[in-house]
């Protein structure tokens, strides 16, 4: 029984992290219908930036997190303005080829600067070890992860639901021509969303060094996971990808714990089943 709760808890923490990394992909795919397989590269940038800062400046891990967010966000903004923006009107095949090329370039760059090995961060003492709640041991760092993602999700929701910028994003997703024809700078809205999504991915990448690991193959290793979150959850929404990421996280951890020989097979079957049941995603407005 305790192992079931423990696995569920680990799965939720893992799913929260997947959501944090993938939510930006959901927003940008919903807005511009742009297939971005390179999203994980920005998570990796955040992760390495955080590791590099702790090593070079001695900054404590938690203090590097805002830098991971802004660093990856700026990298995303630059990549969108200089490169990706040119591909919005291109075919999906061109988008896939280009962004896969971007992934391999980012892998080579990470390899060149940081080597092939796994990276580590030292989390502060108060986030190490377990907290005993009602007879179950819960990892403190995973509790912290879940709390951070809950707060960020609330903040994101409020931004999209309550601010004028959020309404402009929704209007642009609903009808780009009408939004532009009424004065919304759809291109700028999209750039800012892309930057925000990349920043959140970078934050997720840094927070996830402990959980997901970090080496140059990161953007390739997790590509399928991020895509699953968006495809199953539905592009252009928050709720769908959140549910999808939590389901994915729990079943992946549970599968590997209880039936290790099946590996990732369980989640693929699950995701196919979910897609058959909800062809346009769990919470998306578009297929």
């Amino acid at each position, binding site marked *: 029984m305790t192992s079931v709760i423990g696995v569920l808890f680990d799965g939720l923490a893992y799913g929260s992290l997947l959501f944090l990394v993938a939510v930006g992909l959901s927003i940008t795919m919903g807005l511009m219908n742009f297939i971005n397989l390179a999203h994980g590269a920005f998570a990796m940038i955040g992760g390495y930036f955080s590791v590099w800062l702790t090593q070079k400046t001695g900054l404590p891990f938690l203090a590097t997190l805002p830098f991971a967010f802004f660093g990856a966000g700026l990298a995303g903004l630059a990549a969108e303005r200089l490169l990706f923006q040119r591909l919005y009107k291109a075919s999906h095949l061109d988008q896939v080829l280009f962004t896969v090329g971007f992934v391999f370039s980012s892998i080579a760059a990470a390899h060149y600067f940081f080597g092939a090995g796994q990276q580590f961060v030292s989390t502060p003492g108060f986030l190490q070890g377990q907290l005993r709640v009602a007879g179950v041991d819960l990892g403190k760092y995973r509790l912290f992860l879940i709390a951070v993602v809950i707060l960020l999700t609330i903040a994101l929701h409020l931004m999209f639901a309550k601010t004028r910028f959020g309404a402009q994003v929704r209007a642009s997703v609903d009808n780009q021509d009408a939004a532009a024809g*009424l004065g919304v700078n759809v291109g700028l809205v999209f750039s800012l969303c892309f930057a925000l999504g990349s920043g959140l991915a970078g934050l997720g990448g840094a927070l996830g060094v402990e959980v997901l690991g970090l080496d140059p193959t990161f953007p390739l290793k997790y590509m399928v996971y991020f895509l699953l979150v968006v495809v199953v959850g539905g592009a252009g929404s928050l709720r769908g990808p959140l549910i999808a990421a939590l389901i994915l996280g729990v079943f992946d951890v549970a599968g590997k714990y209880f039936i290790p020989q099946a590996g990732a097979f369980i989640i693929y079957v699950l995701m196919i089943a979910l897609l058959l049941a909800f062809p346009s995603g769990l919470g998306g*407005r578009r297929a």
Partner: protein
Amino acid sequence: MTDLLRVEALCAGYGQARVLDGISFAMKPGESLALLGRNGVGKSTLIRSLMGLTKRHSGSVFFGGADLSAASPTRRARAGLGWAPQERAMFPSLTVEEHLTTTARPGPWTLEKIYEVFPRLRERRLNMGDQLSGGEQQMVAIARALTTNPRLLLLDEPMEGLAPIIVQELAAVIGRLIREGGMAAIVVEQHARLALSMTERAMVLDRGRVVHESSSESLLRDSETLGRLVAVAA
């Protein structure tokens, strides 16, 4: 007075297809124009071309003294073109009130003023864009264009598909907007007589060309010409 809008030999369409075949006309500030013509002659294409949402093959569009021929829709809207599209283009994930605030710009048309003119929208302010009747959608489309505080209001068939009683009610409001609103307006209408009764000038299109220009009053009196150029319902 200098022209607010000047269109010169505009040829535009969708991709390779040319719909507008050399359109030229001009409007002064505050002036109102009825844009008439049978279905499919290019009225909406002209409006969309003013907004920069079609493919321009040649020709120019000047607005407020600036050359906007190659400008983005965003820039045109911000320059003072207020567009109420024929397909209404409601945003399903915005409330009525958000439709009226998200693209609003400073000027006399505040939310309060809009609610005074369209009291119905105050009642519906928390409805989403896809939870509205046809007449309400039309009001939101017009009101949304007004909140951008345009110098030129573009109304593309604002009465389309509405019940006669609602047409009368809305026509009264639009007529008042055009006379007292201080802004220029182009009104595209199938109800030719209605559009003529609320505007100063008239322009008729046929197959992408201007085939008639006159004062609205004289066209309204000339039933023979009107019947020849436009299918007149009533």
